[in-house]
């Protein structure tokens, strides 16, 4: 299909937050025309569908190299395609970690040969993610990396963080942080509060996240550097970020679909699939995060797709690794819980998965316009379906949403004009 038209869909303008019924003509991997009554050799009927610029996920765990039993670049990009993501950023907590030019180049090359969607490697802040010495950020940047983080192993030393925030500027890199003071979170499994007390689960206080958010904001301000706060999960973290934005600190932040839609009440099942880091928080936090998405204080949505093997998760919750596999449920969950409930408009939601992440990463904002690359996600907002992890393309079946009824599903995903996923099928 080198020449085809997406017919009768609603094209979403994720920059101006509008949508209009238009046809989209795609030729040689590019958007050739957007208009009415377009025709081509082939047609994809998009009646009732939303045609969005391709979704971007800046927080995914592909597990390769080192943990191929959990996920591979190939399976993760299939999952991304099925979930409507045309570009995903791969977290560096692999084995070995992505802390130099060679590793970043390997991931890029590997993704080019086996990946269905665009894969961009994220580098480490410190060598080996050990929090001791700065990683070779110059080399990482040379390999095309735009963001560094020690995700999962937050930089405990304030001094190293300050140095990273300064050093990264030499190479135009964005420093991101998974904010968690491990001396406070300890063995924590459940957000500390009524539910951890009720369920008898080891508590993880909100302060574990909030104190490090505060620290990072202060350090970024001092270094006059950009900082990106990963998976914000509490009301107060968000308040700190808002305050810093007001003071001129160059801070951006992301939120996950699970922190927008689920609470710590779910831990009462003792199901390891509800264990995630940062933990699911309270109803009040969820409300604040939703508000932050609407008022713009949260820049983007990122899945923190964290696949694990069955044997990793089929254990007691205390020893199960944290994480939820998220690429294939994100759109369904967000449409079901936020769009169909009239909490957030389709335009705002999709802008937080396109314009938002692109702006955070400093890359070109995707749009469906003549002459732009045809990275496109087509969503059927009314499609009803039930989550069945067995049907996931991801090797990670770890989701607390198994059996959940959803409304809203990705119909097709197009990368550089190529249809990589359509109507339940890859390729």
């Amino acid at each position: 299909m080198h020449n085809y038209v997406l017919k009768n869909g609603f094209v979403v303008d994720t920059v101006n937050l509008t949508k209009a019924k238009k046809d989209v003509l795609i030729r040689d991997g590019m958007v050739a025309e957007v208009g009415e009554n377009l025709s081509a050799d082939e047609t994809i009927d998009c009646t009732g569908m939303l045609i969005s610029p391709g979704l971007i996920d800046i927080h995914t765990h592909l597990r390769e190299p080192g943990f191929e039993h959990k996920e591979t670049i190939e399976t993760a990009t299939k999952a991304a395609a099925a979930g409507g993501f045309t570009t995903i950023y791969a977290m560096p907590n692999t084995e070995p970690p992505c802390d130099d030019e060679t590793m970043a180049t390997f991931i890029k090359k590997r993704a080019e040969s086996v990946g269905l969607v665009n894969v961009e490697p994220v580098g480490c802040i410190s060598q080996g993610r050990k929090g001791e010495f700065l990683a070779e950020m110059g080399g990482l940047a040379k390999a095309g990396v735009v963001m560094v983080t020690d995700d999962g192993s937050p930089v405990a030393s304030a001094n190293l963080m300050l140095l990273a925030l300064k050093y990264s500027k030499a190479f135009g890199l964005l420093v991101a942080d998974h904010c968690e003071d491990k001396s406070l979170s300890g063995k924590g499994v459940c957000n500390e509060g009524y539910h951890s007390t009720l369920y008898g689960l080891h508590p993880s206080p909100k302060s574990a996240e909030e104190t490090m958010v505060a620290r990072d904001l202060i350090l970024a301000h001092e270094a006059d550097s950009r900082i990106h706060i990963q998976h914000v999960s509490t009301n107060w973290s968000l308040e700190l970020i808002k305050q810093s934005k007001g003071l001129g600190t160059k801070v951006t932040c992301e939120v996950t679909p699970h922190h927008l839609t689920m609470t710590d009440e779910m831990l009462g099942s003792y199901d390891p699939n509800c264990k995630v880091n940062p933990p699911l928080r309270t109803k009040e936090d969820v409300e604040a995060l939703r508000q932050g998405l609407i008022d713009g204080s949260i820049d983007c949505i990122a899945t923190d797709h964290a696949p694990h093997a069955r044997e990793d998760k089929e254990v007691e919750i205390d020893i199960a690794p944290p994480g939820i596999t998220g690429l294939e449920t994100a759109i369904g969950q967000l449409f079901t819980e936020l769009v169909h409930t009239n909490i957030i408009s389709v335009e705002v939601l999709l802008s937080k998965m396109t314009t938002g992440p692109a702006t955070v990463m400093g890359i070109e904002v995707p749009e469906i316009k003549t002459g732009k690359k045809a990275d496109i996600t087509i969503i059927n907002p009314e499609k009803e379906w039930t989550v069945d992890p067995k049907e996931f393309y991801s090797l990670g079946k770890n989701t607390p949403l198994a059996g959940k009824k959803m409304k809203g599903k990705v119909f097709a995903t197009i990368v550089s004009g190529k249809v990589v996923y359509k109507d339940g099928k890859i390729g």
Partner: protein
Amino acid sequence: MGLKRKDLLGLKDMSREEIGLILDSAESFKELLGREIKKAPVLRGKTVVNLFMEPSTRTRTSFELAAKTLSANVINISASTSAVQKGECLKDTVLTLTALGADYIVIRTGMCGAPHFMSTFFDGHVLNAGDGINEHPTQALLDMYTIKERTGSIEGKKVLILGDVRHSRVARSNIFGLLKMGAEVGVCGPPTLLLKDIEQLGVKVHHNLDEALPQYDIVNVLRIQLERQKQGLFATSHEYYEHYGLTNSRLEKNPHLIVMHPGPMNRGIEIDPAVAESDKATITTQVTNGVAVRMAVLYLLLGGESNA
């Protein structure tokens, strides 16, 4: 008449009627334990496995005696002498025990919610004998039985739970059980040893023991692990004893008090030996009652098919 549930996972999800049924049934089993020939054929042909991942004297022995008195085959497994040492996961351990014909698995574990996890793939009866910091339902049941036996009823009694409530499965099960049975419950300890939002469970919170004690009929003293001091949760054991120890002078000022302790005790750290051995204390009675209560639970679960 039995419980309409397969497992005893905790008191959080149990009704007042179910708890009442267990306590009532325990009375006849206690009577049986007083006889010369302590044997009933209730569980003849059934296999009870005590799967103990953590050390235990009284709970394991108590479950073993309860099951043997009811004529069950009893097997004791401890983590230190099992394939758990070779890295076998809980699921495989349980599947192995299932293949060997276990009808009941009594589990003691450091992992919160492990009995709930087990119950999703074990068709027999799961009895929680203590899971991490979560629950220890049979301990709370025997504590409530002891209160009822000693004072005539649980309804309206005021019970203070003293000490390391934060890490105590005994405290949590007692709170759930006592509140359901109509008692009033308070907790007392330094804030570092209490739980966030615990008042939302319906308990009163105290930090001053001398002010709290006169307001209660019964004090349940929790064991304080010395490890907690190393974690910085209190300053020194000397200071802990001074402010939160159940000393003889505190008991003399509150002669109406009944003193309970789930054991094992740290004499001179949370409780004065003279208090522990006084006629105000029910500590050894609690141990005896534990066997009767566990017999009742084993018996009453027999008819239960699915979790209510």
